């Protein structure tokens, strides 16, 4: 591998309840105040503890995919392909062996798994569809997206709760930095599915089950009482700085450093404030040779889960980083959100909305089970 490279963001593509498009659309969507969270329409929530979600209107995908692909692909694969295509078109990055892909997801294609198994339970072995089976493997979204965008470098799918998109972007930054690819399309995707929604609702994961007050997504607020699910796909194009310059790409921001780590806690738990001796936020700052005081804005992964929100606030305070702002109340919790947070940070820096020329933005993520991520975003070099 060659010497570490500088990593920049040269493209964005997003399909979320907030809207669809490349970097200009993402900028516009992020500037809107209204949240698209509303009662779920895709399935009947009657009798369940929760009813809200941030849904993608499938009709909005028309025109983004050719009709044959739309028929052939599962819904989550359609979301992924649309998000990746938008990002690649936005960036203009060429296909080929130097282009990689990283997809983060929490749930993958459960819809296909359910459909595959239901065929067997209804009709026995003859009810099994060989066409659906490949979709039950969680890398199916990356598989079809790699073909669509011509990504012939490394293609990695990471499975992670809450911060799948953050981890995917951090992983992609490492692939570029370490010389495994000149550019990587990276982000995350998840879709809402009735079976999953219902179980999470009944298990008390979704608002309002975890506390008193009305149903809603209120990260870091005193009355936060659970998660509201969203869905969609957001992808960024991360690219080697020199390569991006050489082809005259628009550079939105630089990822100065990316780090991720792990707090050793029991699976699915979010114990109250603990020290993190290996804080990825601090490691990211040290790696970029900047002090916490240089960070002006922090996007956090707070999603309304009371224990997780409080844990994240405690860890960020211990690292002397600014109080975080969350986008989850706008778009609902889903695997694409981490990439949307990085997009927001990159556009903040590009627009100069960060209040100091030297100010940096940290995109921070924390999940139950202890996965913690940090990306340090700066102005375009």
């Amino acid at each position, binding site marked *: 591998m060659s010497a570490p490279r500088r990593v920049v963001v040269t493209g964005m593509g997003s399909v979320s309840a907030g809207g669809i498009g490349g970097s200009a659309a993402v900028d516009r969507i992020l500037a809107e105040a209204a949240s698209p969270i509303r009662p779920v329409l895709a399935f009947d929530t009657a009798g369940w503890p929760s009813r809200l979600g941030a849904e993608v209107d499938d009709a909005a995908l028309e025109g983004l995919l050719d009709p044959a692909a739309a028929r052939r692909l599962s819904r989550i694969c359609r979301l992924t392909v649309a998000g990746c295509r938008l990002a690649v078109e936005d960036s203009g990055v060429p296909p080929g*062996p130097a282009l990689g892909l990283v997809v983060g997801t929490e*749930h993958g294609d459960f819809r296909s798994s359910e459909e595959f198994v*239901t065929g067997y339970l209804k009709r026995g072995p003859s009810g099994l569809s060989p066409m659906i089976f490949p979709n039950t*493997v969680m890398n199916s979204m990356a598989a079809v997206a790699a*073909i669509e965008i011509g*990504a012939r470098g490394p293609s990695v799918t990471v499975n*992670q709760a809450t911060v799948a998109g953050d981890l995917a972007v951090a992983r992609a930054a490492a692939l570029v930095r370490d010389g495994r690819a000149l550019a990587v399309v990276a982000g995350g995707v998840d879709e809402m599915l009735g079976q999953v929604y219902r179980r999470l609702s009944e298990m008390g994961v979704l608002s309002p089950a975890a506390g008193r007050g009305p149903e809603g997504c209120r990260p870091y607020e005193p009355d936060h009482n659970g998660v509201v699910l969203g869905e969609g796909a957001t992808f960024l194009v991360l690219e080697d700085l020199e390569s991006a310059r050489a082809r005259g790409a628009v550079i939105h921001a630089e990822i100065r450093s990316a780090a991720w780590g792990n707090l*050793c806690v029991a699976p699915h738990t979010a114990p109250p404030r603990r020290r993190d001796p290996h804080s990825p936020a601090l*490691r990211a700052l040290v790696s970029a040779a900047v002090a916490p005081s240089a960070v002006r804005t922090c996007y956090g992964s707070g999603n309304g889960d009371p224990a997780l929100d409080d844990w994240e606030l405690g860890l960020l305070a211990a690292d002397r980083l600014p109080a975080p702002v969350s986008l989850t109340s706008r778009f609902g919790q889903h695997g694409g959100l981490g990439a949307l947070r990085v997009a927001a940070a990159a556009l903040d820096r590009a627009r100069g909305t960060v209040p100091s020329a030297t100010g940096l933005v940290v995109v921070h993520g924390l999940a139950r089970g202890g996965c913690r991520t940090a990306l340090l975003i700066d102005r375009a070099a």
Partner: protein
Amino acid sequence: MTRVVVSGLGVVSPYGTGAKTFWTGLANGTCAIRPLTAIDTEGFRSRIGAEVPADVLASLGPSRRRARADRLALAAAREALADADLSPTDRACAGLFVGAVGGGMFEAETWYWEETRTGRPSPRIGALRSILPSTHAETLSFRLGLCGPKETVVMACASGAASLALGLDLIRSGAAPLALCGGVDALTRVCFMGFNALRLLDLEPCRPFDRDRKGMSIGEAAAFVVLEEAAHCRERGGRVHAEFLGAGMTTDAHHVTSPEPNADGMVRAIEEALTAAGRAPGDIGYVNAHGTGTPQNDRVEALALARVFGPGRVLISSTKSLVGHTMAAAGSVEAVASVLTLQHGLVPPTANLRATDPDVPFDCVPETARAVELEAVLSNSFGFGGQNVSLVFGR
């Protein structure tokens, strides 16, 4: 460039627990593919596979409520850490890369079957807590005190190999001095039914590279290795099994389930691994092939090997003919097999190979292990989605 060594090995395979048991099975050419007992195979074309025996599973410690895959992973990971003889301080800074696909699906299927068939809520709903592949990494990090960067890699049948490749990158980047890397998959009904539906399973134990091969045999396993910065290992007096020289990762971007017919993606992965390792094709004495036993995979892999090494210029064999295709674990199972092959100077055979396919212009070491002096070996793993990963290990 930072040198990275393999300082610990751990395996739970259809032969039983432990790397020694695994090696004995491989060296003797014992085929562990038999009629399946863990899942109902009634009505399916193929009814065989390589499963971890029930008495071995029962011996894996007291936590019988844990998912089958978590139990396999914990046992293999514990062995690797014990083999490396790491202190709690070393463990606290260790990264963790887990290749996984099925997660806790074996238990979740039982729950789903029960609810769907009875129409009533099943008390087994707790199974859903470990359904996601990422649960393995959470369980391992918590139980084993691993506090470095943690990642769950889902790259189909190349997952286990990819976990080692990414662990290598992590150590070389300086983010951690060591990492526990490997893969795990337990048998699941979805996997068994899916490969049956695709008609990719042989009705008899698989025969990779054979002229009359009819498909693969599924299996289950967990295998982990401790990767460590060579200087860190030396300073603490750790044991070196092998040096991990380099890795290549590419994607075909051609078809979801079929490899690129001209083998370009595989060739790029192998060449990338050799370049990263600083080795020429002639330096490699043995290739632990992906070798599934499907007509298509073996033909294309042989083409890739012929393009890189030249026909007949390297020994190859398939571990899958002995322990089945262990899915997400396969890449790490075969990485361990490759390291042990180097250590022992003995190439495990390809079982059930009676007449080598003329399209496979290589000595595939049929039936009986062969003693060979080896300086470097290569391990291939390919998966759905056109995922290609190649690893190079040296003495």
